[in-house]
């Protein structure tokens, strides 16, 4: 087991900078997730760790040892590919045994270790099947077993669950978490699915546009996003623009037009002054119909649109020239055109400077 360190790693494909000065430290035994939208460079980063891509700049270290120039087969990592990459001309047993045979282990030991890992991932009885005779979930397990059996220094998982159906995905997610903790292998997990990342990671690195934009524990990333991108990428969010009317310490008051002033917390690491353009980011699920005990904003507006989602009612409320989204109790019927009042705690409103907003304006926010 090792600690993995990336130092200022940059990789270009032609003119496209896929990975831009990425530095990461993955602790020994940690399950570390790289999360980001497609094309953000997360898979390339993983492939640089595996040695499939060679960085144009920067270094990759395993426990103080520079492995940048080591070939994939000299690194001792084991990767689970998104499409599993099972060899169609080999049985389940031969697929899993491959890494051990390469190491020239005695036959009896190969057999013993393969059977043990087959049992561990619940594939007993399928060892003579060919990959094409297996279901997607079973193929996934073979790929995992093939990686685990060599007892790698680092386990690399590239969107391993993205080809499974929703229910199986949740089950495999728990299984991967359980196995990883039990074996204590340093693991780097790449995904674009934030729920997956939140639920199984020790720490998460959020990547966007080739850069790491925030690293932290899942709770920390959700509760105090470090920038607008993370705030809008993680979870659902809704936004109101305005002009700063007052700043005192962490507390900011924002005039969002039509005489409405919202109180919120200043995002960590940013500065705002009176009269600056700013943006209030809120989670739709944080809105309430009853006034909470803590200090809260009271927002009144006309209902524009309602959508019944099941677990909640999505309500779009018009506030002067802007509107915001709130997830409300599905039992309460709301009709478009009626006036309504909702509450949100001041602590749940995060205020960012408006700069850079246009570039990341998602449909999730609008």
């Amino acid at each position, binding site marked *: 087991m090792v600690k993995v360190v990336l130092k200022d790693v940059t990789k270009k494909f032609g003119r496209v900078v896929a990975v831009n000065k990425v530095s990461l430290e993955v602790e020994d035994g940690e399950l570390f997730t790289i999360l980001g939208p497609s094309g953000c460079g997360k898979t390339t980063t993983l492939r640089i760790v*595996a*040695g*499939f891509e*060679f960085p*144009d700049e920067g270094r990759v270290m395993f426990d103080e040892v520079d492995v940048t*120039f080591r*070939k*994939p*087969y000299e*690194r*001792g*990592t*084991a*990767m689970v*590919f*998104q*499409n599993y*990459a099972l*060899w*169609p*001309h080999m049985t389940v047993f031969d697929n899993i045994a*491959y*890494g051990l045979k*390469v*190491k020239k282990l005695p036959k009896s030991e190969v057999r013993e270790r393969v059977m043990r890992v087959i049992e561990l991932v619940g594939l007993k009885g399928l060892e003579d099947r060919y990959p094409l005779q297996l279901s997607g979930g079973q193929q996934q397990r073979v790929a995992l077993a*093939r*990686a685990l059996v*060599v007892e790698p220094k680092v386990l690399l998982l590239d969107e391993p669950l993205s080809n499974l159906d929703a229910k199986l995905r949740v089950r495999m997610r728990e299984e991967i978490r359980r196995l990883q903790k039990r074996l204590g292998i340093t693991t780097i997990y790449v995904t674009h699915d934030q729920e997956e990342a939140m639920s199984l990671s020790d720490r998460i690195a959020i990547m966007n546009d080739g850069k790491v934009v925030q690293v932290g524990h899942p709770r920390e990333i959700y509760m105090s996003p470090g920038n607008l991108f993370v705030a809008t990428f993680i979870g659902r969010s809704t936004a109101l623009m305005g002009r700063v009317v007052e700043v005192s310490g962490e507390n900011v008051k924002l005039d969002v037009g039509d005489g409405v002033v919202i109180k919120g917390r200043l995002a960590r690491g940013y500065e705002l002054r009176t009269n600056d353009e700013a943006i209030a980011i809120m989670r739709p699920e944080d809105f309430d119909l009853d006034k909470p005990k803590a200090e809260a904003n009271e927002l009144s507006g006309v209902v524009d649109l309602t959508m019944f989602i099941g677990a909640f009612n999505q309500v779009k409320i018009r506030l002067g020239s802007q509107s915001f989204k709130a997830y409300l109790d599905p039992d309460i019927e709301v009709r478009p055109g009626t006036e309504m009042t909702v509450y949100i705690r001041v602590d749940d409103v995060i205020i960012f400077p408006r700069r850079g907003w246009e570039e990341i304006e998602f449909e999730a926010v609008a």
Partner: protein
Amino acid sequence: MGLLRKLRFYLDSAMVVQLLIPVVFFGLFLIIPLAAVAVFPLVPGISGTTYSPLLLFQDPSMIRFTSTRPSVIIRQVVMGGENLTLIALFGPNYGAIPNSLINSMVVTLGASIFGLVVAFVMARYDFPGKMFFRVLAMVPLLLTPFINAFVVRKMFMYDGIISYFIHRILHLPYIIYVDYLAGVMIAQVMTFWPIVYLNVYASMVQIDPSLEEQAENLGAKGFRLFRTVTLPLSLPGLAAGAAVVFIFSLEDLGAPIAFREFDMISFKIFSGLRAAITGEVPPYVASLSLLLLALAMVAFLSIKKYVSLRQYAMVVRGGRWLPRVRKPGMIGAVLIYALILPAMLFTAFPQIGVFMYSLAERWTKTFPEGLTLKYFSEMVSNPVLFTSIKNSLIYAGSALAIIVLLGISTAYVVARGRIPGLGILDAIATSPIAIPGLAIATGYFLVFSRAPFKSTLLDPFTSGPWLLLILAYAIRRSPFTIRAVYAGLQQIHEALEESAMNLGASRWRTLATIVIPLLGLSILGGALVSFVYSMAETSVSVTLGGIESSQRPITYSMYEYLYSGYVEGPNLVAVMAVFIISIQLTVIVVTNFILKQRYAFIGV
């Protein structure tokens, strides 16, 4: 600096070896000989003079401004007591260079028009007997070196089948006689049109039907739809097919020899190189080879732009679609059965004629006469023929071993290498399709018969041409295998190799345990096709192949027996052609039905 860093990482021993194999092989046996063809005309010969390509344009047998013969002669003749009009088509003769250019342009145009029509009908219509049409369209591509054009000439003699049909069946008072350049044109269009058909057809079935439906939806139909959507999207196939036909037509020898059109670039190089048996070639040979090479390269490079369009024809592809086929209307059906079918049967006739010839006692008048198998037994008992068949099997088999090695290395490096400059290697490895064999033969003669190769195994005068023939076959036919292996590699997800290396397998081990086992069928399919085309190679075989009589390949003997005046010669050549066709048919069956691959026919 960055490049060195990269190379240090991506070049491991396996990659270096895989890279060196094609670089060394193509460098020694393709680039250097062709460079010699380019340089030699500028270097003084033994007489101390140079024969620059410019001198070609002062030689009246190469180029002149008046034709030496009328293109058409129409004359009243009396035959069998009947007054008939003889129409003799000869075509003009402006010397070798204009003749070859005129011929190739006419042939390319003719083959393109007919190929395009057949491709459109086959890709867009469904009609009874379509399978028969499909098979019929492949018949002209069956390899029948020399004898093919020989039979075409028989068809177009005074007393040939064409005149018989017009005079005796249609009862029209005409007889037709075709010879010289006009005959070359007809014979080549008949042989080469399926190349255009196959390439255009492949393009047309790749067009997303929604593109045509959208145009119809906006009001385009009929010829307008064809002209504005279908044809532009088929252009990659048309360009590729037309360029290949142009090049094949330029370097073809069979038709010029059969129709006695000796003023052609290919024939001039051929006859010059055959004089090489004396050790020295006429000075114009290298210059003419350079011209031939340049013309072929222009054709090849000018379509590069269009062929890359192939991807754009597929960009909008999403999922599977039902091909856009419909039933032809009344007029369409009449055109298909009354016009296209007879035309296709006509172009397939030379191959049918070769079969009849092989089983006939003689074919001296309109039709073959008498049924016999004696020529089949004579092919085996005749020591000269038997030796040349044996030689060709050995040469093609040895070439195959090189081709497989070269095919795997080249395709692997091009598909998987991460170093700059591989595009050049890819282009060089594909180029033998477009490089005239006569230019290669000239290059081999220029390079390997003198120092530093003099008196080595490569020298055709001291060791015989066997090694040069094997190398030439390997170079000329390797693109079939390289392309097949490359296509196979694209089917294999790279992650299958990466996962092996990730688990500690070196690149060599990954090649042996993952890549080659998964590529097996692609390699076999490509290799079989390469083998057949090696057997039927003519350009190098009939020039350098004749230097040592005991080492002659099959195509050399076919040429010799056809034109050396031996009475039973053509019958024996027909039998040998049937032998080559049967090998080819076996390969087609194996690749299509056992390996389930599309038979990799000619295309760029």
